[in-house]
């Protein structure tokens, strides 16, 4: 058995890349990583520690043009005889895995939360109904594609650095031109963040977000918000989490002044630990949270930031 893991390395290698390689290794197969992007060979060789036996790097594409990357992966599948392709279920995988599924006539498991079982041949669990249930997807084709939900398995270092080979995957022409890329400096991407501090209408006005940002900074967390807060322009759209915003699964989610409407919970209920801070004892968030603080965000948030500062001062 042979598996291809596709990783984009333009942002360096993150935890999700190690998760994907670990997952592929656990399928019991020989793992070849295919990557595009700018990481240097020394960095890429590290993927061997997680179980890759080889990294193929195609440096001919400099955008995430879905047609080009699909062609490159398809070439690698053909050359290695791989029967499975694994992605980490990020924004790039969401745009490429479906194309590859059609090209290879390979059934796609979108957002897998577990390793496959032999049930009916090959069956994998995914989140459905915005995290309110799990669905078991049976893949009927010989070739399979699995896009792994981040934070679903623990990366395991098992080996040592592996070979990195330059690869020409026949990317072909691009029909998409990148005009500019904006990445806010120093901010943690929300969907990658291990900790998230999120706030809602309870903050009352955009100028009050300082106490949210202070806490996020002390925690090394990303910031998020509820939908109405993004809709009225208090916070940028890319912070909106929920059923119609980003779905996130951090280890820690702190919700301040958010009621906990069902549509909001749908985007955050995969979080490992939830803390809700609200003045209303009846707020639905207390039913979904692990820890609750019945109190005013304007007092509780600064107090929590202070308590964390004390904790970090004594524990570092």
């Amino acid at each position, binding site marked *: 058995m042979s598996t291809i893991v596709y990783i984009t390395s333009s*942002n360096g290698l993150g935890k999700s890349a190690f998760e994907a390689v670990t997952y592929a290794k656990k399928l019991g197969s020989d793992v070849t990583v295919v990557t595009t992007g700018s990481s240097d060979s020394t960095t890429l060789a590290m993927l061997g520690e997680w179980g890759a036996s080889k990294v193929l790097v195609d440096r001919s594409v400099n955008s995430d043009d*879905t*047609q080009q990357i*699909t062609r490159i992966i398809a070439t690698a599948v053909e050359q290695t005889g791989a029967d499975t392709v694994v992605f980490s279920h990020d*924004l790039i995988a*969401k*745009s*490429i895995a*479906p*194309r590859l*599924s*059609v090209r290879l006539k*390979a*059934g*796609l498991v*979108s957002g897998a939360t577990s390793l496959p079982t032999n*049930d009916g041949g090959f069956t994998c*669990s*995914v989140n*459905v*109904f*915005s*995290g309110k*249930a799990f*669905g*078991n*997807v*049976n*893949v*009927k084709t010989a070739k399979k594609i699995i896009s792994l939900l981040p934070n679903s398995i623990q990366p395991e270092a098992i080996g040592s650095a592996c070979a990195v080979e330059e690869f020409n995957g026949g990317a072909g022409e691009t*029909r998409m*031109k*990148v*005009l500019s*890329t*904006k990445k806010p400096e120093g901010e943690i991407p929300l969907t*990658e963040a291990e900790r998230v501090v999120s706030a809602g209408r309870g903050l009352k006005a955009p100028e009050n977000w300082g106490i949210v940002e202070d806490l996020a900074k002390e925690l090394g967390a990303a910031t998020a918000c509820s939908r109405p807060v*993004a809709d009225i322009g208090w916070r940028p*759209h*890319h912070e909106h989490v929920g*059923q*119609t915003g980003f779905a996130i699964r951090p*280890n820690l989610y702190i919700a301040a002044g958010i009621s906990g409407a069902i*549509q909001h919970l*749908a985007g955050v209920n995969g979080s490992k*630990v939830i803390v809700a801070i609200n003045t209303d004892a009846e707020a639905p968030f*207390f*039913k*979904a*949270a*692990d*820890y609750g*603080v*019945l*109190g005013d965000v304007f007092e509780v948030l600064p*107090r*929590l930031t202070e*308590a*964390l500062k004390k*904790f970090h001062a004594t524990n570092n």
Partner: protein
Amino acid sequence: MKILVCISKSPDTTSKIAFTDSSTKFDENGVQYIVNPYDEWYALVRALELKETIGGNVTIITVGTAADDSVIRKALAIGADDAVRIDADATDAYFTASQIASYAKANGFDLILTGKETINYNGSQVAGMIAEELDLPFVSLATKLDISGTKLTLEKEIVGGVQVVEVELPVVISCAKGMAEQRIPNMRGIMAARTKPLTIIAPIEVTPLTAFVSYTMPAPKTACKMIDPNNMDELVALLHNEAKVI
């Protein structure tokens, strides 16, 4: 300009999620269906805005049974010109995308728009699959779309930021928040929707690649532990010692 907007039905966001037939089927009992919010708020509304500024025709398409006609009428009420329903159960994303691609190929569209995902299966698959079937460029999760002649300028979400890209028509685009603002249909729209053309087409033969075989509900949450708002040191200690997240 000919625009095709792919719409799907999804259960109302407040629906109770339950399963029947030994957990193999979604329990539709008491469930209200709506147009999938991403398809309606972003893809359809942006298509209508384009039509209003540069002219053209907006066709909506769905793969579904007669039970979905009410959802189609809702989308027509918001302003689409006509609708196509491929008369089949949308068994998997590949089946669905193949049907839509086949129709699009036969009828020639300049722009194909979808929502970023459905809120029931959250697969984010159909748009990319249509693009591959038609050998067209695909820009996913676009949050802004401007057009000048046959050239589109798009903003799209990337990990940790946004990217501005340019593509030529024809192209497939999946739409995310920021693309447009939700429109509430008015009485005139609802009346007009009743008589707008809805074409029903037989499906082509396609073998699905995947199938949902069963469903499970997540384990229920244990009770929330309440912390004294004056004692945040206790919360920090719990997050460190008990939850082990800091």
